[in-house]
C-alpha cells in the first residue's frame, strides 16, 4: 500500500520532457518533488503563473507571489505571469499537457466528484471544473477508499459532479487504473497489494485482462 508521497512519486513517472503541468492541492502538489532527472517540466498555477518554483527560503516570502493554494512560492527561470482569463484560456485551449488532481469519487466512465458534499458547507469549485472540462490528460491522485473504507471508484458518482467523462488515469494507494469504455482497467498494483484486495475495494467495473505487474518507481 502506498503512502501519499509514493502516490505522487508514481504519478511523476507519467511526466514527459517539455510537459506543462497543473498540479492540484494535496497529493498532486507532492508530485513536484519527484520530477525525474533529465525531464524538464513547467508547472502552471491557475492564479496566473507558468514556471512555478519551490517554496521560498524563510524571510524571502513575497505576498504578491503565491500559487493557487495561496501558498508563498518562487519562480524558476523562464517563468511568466498573466491574468486569470489567460490562465484558464491556456487550460481551455488544451495547452496544459497534464492535470493532476484529487477527487472524492471517480466513476467507471471517467466522471469525477471533488467539490461538494451535500449537507456539508460548500466551499466552491475554484478552478476544478474548468480544469477537468478542458484538460487533455487528467490523472486523479487519491486514496482507493474513503474513511469508512468504502470504494471511491464507483459505477456512478454519488456526490455532485465536478466534470464528466474526463478522467484518464487514477493512481491510488492500491493501484494504477485507466478509464476505458468498459470501466476501470487495472494496470499496476501497489507492492504487497493483491488483485483480490483491489477487486474488493473497487465498486465500479474492474477490467483485469492480463497479469498485473507491481508498480515501479
Amino acid at each position: 500500500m502506498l503512502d501519499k508521497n509514493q502516490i505522487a512519486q508514481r504519478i511523476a513517472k507519467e511526466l514527459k520532457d517539455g510537459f506543462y503541468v497543473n498540479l492540484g492541492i494535496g497529493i498532486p502538489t507532492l508530485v513536484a518533488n519527484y520530477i525525474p532527472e533529465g525531464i524538464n517540466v513547467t508547472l502552471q498555477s491557475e492564479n496566473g503563473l507558468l514556471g512555478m518554483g519551490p517554496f521560498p527560503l524563510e524571510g524571502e516570502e513575497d505576498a504578491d507571489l503565491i500559487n493557487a493554494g495561496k501558498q508563498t512560492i518562487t519562480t524558476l527561470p523562464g517563468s511568466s505571469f498573466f491574468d486569470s482569463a489567460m490562465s484558464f484560456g491556456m487550460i481551455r485551449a488544451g495547452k496544459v499537457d497534464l492535470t493532476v488532481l484529487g477527487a472524492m469519487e471517480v466513476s467507471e466512465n471517467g466522471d469525477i466528484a471533488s467539490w461538494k458534499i451535500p449537507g456539508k458547507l460548500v466551499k466552491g469549485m475554484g478552478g476544478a471544473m474548468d480544469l477537468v472540462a478542458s484538460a487533455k490528460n487528467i490523472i486523479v491522485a487519491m486514496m482507493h477508499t474513503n474513511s469508512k473504507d468504502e470504494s471511491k471508484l464507483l459505477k456512478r458518482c454519488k456526490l455532485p459532479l465536478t466534470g464528466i467523462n474526463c478522467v484518464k488515469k487514477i493512481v491510488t494507494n492500491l493501484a494504477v487504473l485507466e478509464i476505458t469504455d468498459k470501466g476501470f482497467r487495472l494496470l499496476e498494483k501497489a507492492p504487497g497489494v493483491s488483485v483480490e484486495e483491489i477487486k474488493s475495494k473497487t465498486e465500479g467495473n474492474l477490467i483485469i485482462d492480463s497479469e498485473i505487474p507491481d508498480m515501479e518507481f
Partner: protein
Amino acid sequence: MKKVYKNAGEAIFDISDGNTLMLGGFGLCGIPENCITALEKKGVKDLICISNNAGVDDFGIGLLLKNKQVKKMIASYVGENAEFERQLLNGELDVELIPQGTLATRCMAAGYGIPAIYTPAGVGTEVAEGKESRVFKGKEYLMEYAFEADFALVKAWKGDTAGNLIYKETARNFNPLMAMAGQVTIAEVEELVEAGELNPNEIHTPGIYVHRIFQGNSYEKRIEQRTVRKG
C-alpha cells in the same frame, strides 16, 4: 478630466447601497485593501460582490461580511471564512458559486464588449442547470453571459495619472479583467507616477479602462499560507 483622487474615501464617494461591485484579488493577494477599508467605514449595505474569494474573517471582503454589508457573494471559492459560513447557514447571505475560469472569462467578456461566450466548464454538473448549452465539434459548452458591475475595485502595483496600470507577479490575477469590466473602475496603486513615467510597452491595463486612481497606503498584504523551505 482628472482621474486622480486623494484617497479611497474620495474615490468611492458614490458607491451606494445595493451596488454590484467587482473586487480584484486571488485569496488575499492583490486585493484593493484601501477601498475595502473605505467601504467598511462608509457602511454601504446590500452590496453584491463579485470576487474570486471572500477574504478571511478579519481581512479582505471578510471585513465587509462581518459588518453585514454584503447581500450576495459571487465567487469561485469561499472556504477560508468562518463568518461567511455562519451567515450563509443562517440565510443572511446569498451566494452564487461559479467556476474560476468562467468567472474570469465573464469579466473579460464584459471588458471586450462580448455579451456571451462558450465554455465547457460545468457541463454535466449542477452549474449547467438552467443554462443554455451547445455542441461545437462534438464537445458540449455552456453559454455564459458577460458580467455587469456598477464599480470595479482593483489593486495594482504601479499606476500613472492617465490611469495606466502595472500589476506585480500573481497579484495580477483578476484585477486587469475586472478593471476592464466596471461601469466605473477605481484603481488603487502602491505607487502613483506622472503620465509618461511608465513604459507604454509594459502597461497591463490601459488607462481608458480606469476612471479613478489613487495611491493607497499602509498596505498590509497579508499572506494566507506562509510556506517556506529549508535553506
